[in-house]
C-alpha cells in the first residue's frame, strides 16, 4: 500500500467527531499556520507541493491562490466546491462523510492563507445528509475555538457556512457555482474576469474542490517538499480514485500518483480485477467527461509503455490514443458492455444537464442523444455516425464553459476507438448477439 495522506485515519472509530479527530493530530495545520507562518508562507508551501486541482481540471492550486486579487477594504472568499456530480465520482462524498473535520480544517488553513474571513462549502443538494454532517463538524470547531473571532489569539477571524445546491451538474463549474451561491440559476459566466478577480458578489474568490482543500492539511503539516516527493514528475502527492463499474472491489482508493493502471485494476489492493472473471473491454478513467479508452490503450500507451495513474501518463498520446485523469472517476467496463448504449446513457446525461445558455451545447447535446437513441434502437444509418462526429466537433470549444467539451469528448472517443460497434448497430440493429449486456438491461427486448 502506498502512503495515505487524506484517508490515513478514516477507519478509526469516532473519527467523524471532534475529540477523536483532534486526538489523532487534527487541526495541527491550523495551529502551525496561525502561530508560526504568514499567509504568504502557506501559499508558498502549497506552490512547492505541486498540488493540482482535484476536481478535474488539474490546475496548480498554489498558482490559483496567488492570482487572488487583494484590493484594500474588499472581502475575499474561499468557496469549497462540493458539488461532486461528475458521473463515476464519489470520493468527496466519502471524504466528507467519513472525516468531515479534515475538510473543515483545510478550509480554515486555506482561508488564513488567502485572507478570507468567510468561507462557504457548496454541497450538491442531493447530499443533504452530508450537509448535516458538515454542519455538526463546523459547530464542534466553533465550540473548540477553531472558528469565530481571533482564532488562537492570532487576530484571524473566520466564519464558515454550508450552502446546499438544488440539483444541477453544471454547478460544479466554478462560475456557475458562484451564480448558484448568489441564489440564481447556474449559468456559467464568461471569463475573464476570473473568480480570483470577481467571484461571489463581485469579490475576489477562490473556488477549490473538497479533496484539494483537504490536501492543504498534510501540505502545511509536513511541508510542500514532502508532498512533492510523492508521485511522479508534475503529478505530485496522492489522489482519491473512485472506482466503479464491473470490478470486484468498487470503492474509494487513495493512491500515490504513479501506480500503473494495470496494477490498479487487477491488484487486490485496489479494484481486485474484473467481476465474474470477465475480460476488460474499456475504461473511462476520470469521470464520464474524459475520453473512453479500450483495454489495450488504457493499459499501455501507443509506445508500449505502461500507462500510469498520473495526469501526464493518462493523457499521453493526446485524444488520439490517450485520455485524462480528470476527477479520478474510474469506470470499468467488461466485455459484455455495449459501448454504443453506454454512450447514449452519457449523451442523455449531458443533454439533461446542459444549462441551455450556449446554442452549440443546448441544441447539440439534444441531437447527439436523439441520434444515439436512434442507433441504439436499430434505426440508425451509416451517415448518422458521421453526423455524430460532426456534431461533437462543432460543440467542442464553442461554448462558454467546458460542459460542451465534456459532452463532445465521450462521443468523439467512442467513435474513434469503437467505430465497428456503431456500424454493427446500424447494420444488424436488434439482432446484435455479442453484446449480452444489451439484452439484460434493455427494455425493447420485452
Amino acid at each position, binding site marked *: 500500500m502506498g502512503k495515505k495522506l487524506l484517508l490515513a485515519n478514516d477507519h478509526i472509530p469516532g473519527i467523524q467527531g471532534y475529540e477523536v479527530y483532534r486526538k489523532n493530530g487534527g487541526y495541527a495545520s491550523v495551529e502551525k499556520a496561525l502561530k508560526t507562518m504568514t499567509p504568504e508562507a502557506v501559499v508558498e508551501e502549497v506552490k512547492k507541493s505541486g498540488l493540482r486541482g482535484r476536481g478535474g481540471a488539474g490546475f496548480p492550486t498554489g498558482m490559483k491562490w496567488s492570482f487572488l486579487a487583494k484590493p484594500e477594504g474588499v*472581502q475575499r472568499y474561499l468557496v469549497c466546491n462540493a458539488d*461532486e*456530480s*461528475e*458521473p*463515476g*465520482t*464519489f470520493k*468527496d*462524498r*466519502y471524504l466528507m*462523510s*467519513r472525516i468531515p473535520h479534515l475538510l473543515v480544517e483545510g478550509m480554515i488553513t486555506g482561508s488564513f492563507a488567502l485572507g478570507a474571513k*468567510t468561507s*462557504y462549502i457548496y454541497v*450538491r*443538494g*442531493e*447530499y*443533504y*445528509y452530508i450537509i*448535516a*454532517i458538515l454542519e455538526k463538524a463546523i459547530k464542534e470547531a466553533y465550540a473548540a475555538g477553531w472558528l469565530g473571532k481571533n482564532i488562537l489569539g492570532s487576530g484571524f477571524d473566520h466564519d464558515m*457556512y454550508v*450552502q*446546499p*445546491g*438544488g*440539483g*444541477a*451538474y453544471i454547478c460544479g463549474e466554478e462560475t456557475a457555482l458562484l451564480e448558484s*451561491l*448568489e*441564489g*440564481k*440559476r*447556474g449559468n456559467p459566466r464568461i471569463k475573464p474576469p476570473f473568480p480570483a478577480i470577481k467571484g461571489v*458578489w463581485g469579490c475576489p474568490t477562490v473556488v477549490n474542490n473538497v479533496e484539494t482543500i483537504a490536501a492543504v492539511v498534510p501540505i502545511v503539516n509536513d511541508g510542500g517538499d514532502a508532498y512533492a516527493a510523492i508521485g511522479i514528475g508534475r503529478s505530485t502527492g496522492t489522489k482519491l480514485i*473512485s*472506482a*466503479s*463499474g*464491473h470490478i470486484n472491489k*468498487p*470503492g*474509494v482508493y487513495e493512491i500515490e500518483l504513479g501506480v500503473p493502471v494495470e496494477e490498479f485494476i487487477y491488484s487486490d489492493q485496489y479494484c481486485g480485477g474484473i467481476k465474474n472473471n470477465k475480460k476488460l473491454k474499456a475504461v473511462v478513467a476520470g469521470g*464520464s467527461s474524459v475520453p473512453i479508452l479500450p483495454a489495450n490503450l488504457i493499459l499501455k500507451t501507443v509506445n508500449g509503455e505502461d500507462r500510469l495513474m498520473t495526469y501526464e501518463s493518462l493523457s499521453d498520446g493526446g485524444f488520439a490514443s490517450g485520455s485524462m485523469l480528470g476527477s479520478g472517476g474510474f*469506470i470499468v*467496463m467488461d466485455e459484455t458492455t455495449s459501448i454504443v448504449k*453506454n454512450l447514449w*446513457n*452519457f449523451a442523455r*446525461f449531458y443533454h*439533461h444537464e446542459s*444549462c441551455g445558455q450556449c446554442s452549440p451545447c443546448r441544441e447539440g447535446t439534444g441531437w447527439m442523444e436523439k441520434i444515439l437513441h436512434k442507433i441504439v434502437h436499430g434505426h440508425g444509418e451509416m451517415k448518422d455516425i458521421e453526423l455524430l462526429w460532426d456534431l461533437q466537433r462543432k460543440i467542442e470549444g464553442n461554448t462558454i464553459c467546458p460542459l460542451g467539451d465534456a459532452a463532445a469528448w465521450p462521443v468523439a472517443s467512442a467513435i474513434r476507438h469503437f467505430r465497428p460497434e456503431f456500424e454493427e448497430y446500424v447494420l444488424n440493429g436488434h439482432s446484435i448477439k455479442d453484446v449480452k*449486456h444489451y439484452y*439484460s*438491461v*434493455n*427494455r425493447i427486448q420485452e
Partner: protein
Amino acid sequence: MENKPQFKQETLTLIQEIKKRYPEGKHKSALLPVLHLAQAEFDGWLSAPTMDLVAEVLEIEPIEVYEVASFYSMYNLKPVGKCLLEVCRTSSCWLLGAEDIVRHLEKTLGIKEGETTADGMFTIKTVECLGSCGTAPMMQCGAQFHENLTFEKVDSLLEKFKSEGKRTTYFDEVVVENY
C-alpha cells in the same frame, strides 16, 4: 383561489438565521436553502403560492424564485407521492442494472416512471448520477441513499415505507452505511 400558505414559526426563525450567512443585502443567496425548506414543509413540492411566499419572505420578485425553482432538478413543480423514489440512471448505476430496478419498481407499483400511485404514497423519478457509483445501483428516498440495490432489497424497502406511511424529506435522519 387556494388558501395562502404560511411557514411555521420555527421555519421563519431558521430562514432569518440562514439570511445572516451572507453579507448585508445579499440575502437572495438564501433562495436555494429556503426552497428546500419550503418543499419539505409543503408536501414535497413547490406550488405557485408557495413560491410567492418564498419571494415575500426573502423580499425578492416572484420571477426570481420561479426561474430558479424551474432550473434545478430537486425542486418539484408538481405534486409528488409521500415517498419520492429517485433512482440513479447514469453511468455505473446503469452498467449495473439501474434500468432493471426502474422496471421492477414500475411493475411492483403499477405506475410508470414520473407517475404517482393512486394512494399518493410513491412517485418514481429517474435522476442523473448521485455520486454512489461504487455502491451501484442505488436510489435516494428523502435524504437516505439506498445502495447496492437488488429486487429483494427494493421490495423490503417498499414494504417498510408503506408500513411507516411517512413523508420523506431531505432533512430526514440518515443511517450512514459503511463503504
